């Protein structure tokens, strides 16, 4: 019981988003953290360095973010729930091995506390500029899962969700939070362990000699044996068959593998995707927002209603896979869609893609200050003219 108390800090706390994220990970069963200090994600590493020894987990500060992600892929294959946390520049460094994690179907969680880019940009300032990198950053066709928290409480809850998704689908899952969420202090309620739902990777049911490490079952996800369990399997970043044997020239194997790696996410999108809908039933103008901006959007929508503007909000919790059908549905009902983002237009492209004829307006904001509700209302008015 002592252990439980130590891992899940049940109760109400006042903490920052970064800390809540760390606690969420621990509550989710993360027992391996490999990272590299970077603003504004450093506090997560600091918290992990302090907490891991307390709960018998492993913390290692690697020589760079490439090493960090390589290490957590290793830890994941060794059977641990593993995580790293970084920000834009480090996230960029990780891209190649995100591809490796996708290819070798390593369950792991990458936290990206987004700051202003490009390059070193504004380390201490917020941003939502990694939305596309998260999906397309590594080469080749693939799918990942990304969630966007909008409160410190969600930093806790969604981190747990990230691990559950990673374990379910054997895929790297990203928590895309902006600097404000990461550094913001709020009340966080940590439930007792028994109330926390945890998912662990499927184990093979066949004996080692029959085990094929990349042979999927029903939901396209292969059961995962771990190193040291006697299955003696091989995994590679090369295109491989179900046995894990390299297939570097086979058209069939390449097609079969790439399709499955994507489809296991696409075909399960319905199960994966989470959103929050506010007053959309009769809305003429829909605001689609995520992360910190969604909070401004919410109050904007409420104020607008008071002014008689029929506004509604779609808050994206799941960024990737993108909730296409949902957005398409809304687009049909409303006259206009406003997408406030702390970038120069990233997710708005996805919205436009599915909104078809419905006009979509980007409300871009760069630098320190997040959107103000008044700005969003102003945008509605303009849009409705």
């Amino acid at each position, binding site marked *: 019981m002592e252990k439980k108390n130590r891992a899940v800090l049940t109760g109400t706390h006042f903490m920052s988003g970064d800390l809540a994220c760390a606690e969420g990970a621990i509550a989710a069963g993360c027992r391996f953290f490999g990272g590299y200090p970077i603003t504004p994600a450093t506090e997560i590493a600091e918290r992990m360095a302090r907490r891991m020894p307390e709960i018998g987990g*492993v913390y*290692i500060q690697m020589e760079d973010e490439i090493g960090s992600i390589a290490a957590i892929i290793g830890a994941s294959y060794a059977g641990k729930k593993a995580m790293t946390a970084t920000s834009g520049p480090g996230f960029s460094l990780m891209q190649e091995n995100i591809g490796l994690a996708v290819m070798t179907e390593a369950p792991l969680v990458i936290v990206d506390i987004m700051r202003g880019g490009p390059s070193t940009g504004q380390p201490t300032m917020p941003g939502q500029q990694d939305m596309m990198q998260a999906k397309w950053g590594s080469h080749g066709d693939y799918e990942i899962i990304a969630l966007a928290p909008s409160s410190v409480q969600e930093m806790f809850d969604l981190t747990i969700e990230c691990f559950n998704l990673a374990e379910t689908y054997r895929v790297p899952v990203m928590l895309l939070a902006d600097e404000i969420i990461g550094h913001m202090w709020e009340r966080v309620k940590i439930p007792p362990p028994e109330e926390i739902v945890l998912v662990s990777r499927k184990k093979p049911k066949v004996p080692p000699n029959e085990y094929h490490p990349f042979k999927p079952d029903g939901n396209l996800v292969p059961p995962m044996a771990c190193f040291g369990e006697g299955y003696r399997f091989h995994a590679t*970043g090369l295109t491989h068959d179900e046995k894990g044997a390299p297939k570097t020239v086979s058209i069939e194997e390449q097609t079969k593998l790439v399709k499955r790696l994507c489809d296991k996410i696409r075909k399960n999108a319905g199960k994966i995707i989470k959103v929050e809908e506010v007053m959309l039933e009769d809305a003429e103008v829909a605001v689609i927002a995520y992360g910190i901006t969604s909070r401004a959007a919410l109050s904007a929508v409420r104020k607008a209603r008071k002014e008689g503007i029929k506004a509604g909000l779609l808050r994206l919790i799941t960024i990737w896979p993108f909730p296409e059908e949902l957005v398409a549905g809304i687009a049909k009902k409303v006259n206009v869609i406003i997408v406030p983002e702390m970038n120069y237009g990233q997710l708005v492209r996805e919205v436009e893609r599915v909104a078809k004829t419905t006009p979509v307006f980007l409300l871009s904001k760069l630098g320190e200050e997040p959107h103000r509700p008044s700005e969003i209302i102003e945008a509605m008015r303009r849009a409705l003219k």
Partner: protein
Amino acid sequence: MTESNLMLEHPLAKYLRQERMPHIWCEGCGNGVLLCSFFEALDELKLDLDKLVVVSGIGCIGRAAGYVNVDSFHTTHGRAIAFATGVKLANPDLKVVVISGDGDLFAIGGNHFIHAARRNVDIKVICANNFNYGMTGGQYGPTTPLDSWTTTTPYGNIEHPFNLVHLAAASGAVYVARWTTLQVRRLRNSIEKALQKEGLSFIEVISPCPEIYDRYNKLGTAIDVMKRFKLVSEVRHGYDPAKAEITKDQIIVGEFIDIEKPSYGRLFREMTAKVQKKLKGGKAKCERK
């Protein structure tokens, strides 16, 4: 006996993913010899193969992980050691061996190597040094000797090569040895030693590259190169690795470093124990006041 079950008779058959034989390496390539020595070492030690993990990077020798009949992982270019670090720390019961090439470990992966050695992560690094990037057709790398001809040094190499054993020793490896693919028995002994030692062990294996580097540099057939190894290699245990540069007419081989030093894993576990003891109200001090 037919070929297939003749293979089963081979004393090392059980260490090999036979269905993937013959391997992709060229005629006379040293990689196969290295792999064979590794297997013989496993055979000597009768290690529990279920608890052994082999990790490799990119390059010809990178394929080694695919041929060993144990848990194995073929990482991206240069990242084998970082991956192995994760594996070893996540499950200390595993023996983790990195088998990779000079380019993978010391060019693109150099940073991971020196830091793993500094931390003294309990992994074994076996480096096949063929003095160039063979897989991509023979470009110069971090160990290519001065003046050598490669496809990217068409006027001769003007970069000074690493002395890998010196680098490893300076970085803090607890066991450092160098052999050529001709000294297979001694190589096997070193691998055995490394496998039984705590901390980062490094073994450099000087290996022929008959089809690419050796041909470009007119070193003759694989046999010629092996004969040259016989001629120029001199066994000097305990020799100062700093002085063990590889030259045209001398390759000093032997065990250069063999020291004891607690590994990262051990220190982390000890720290963990202290922390938890304190949490249980024990007296141990783990944080500065």
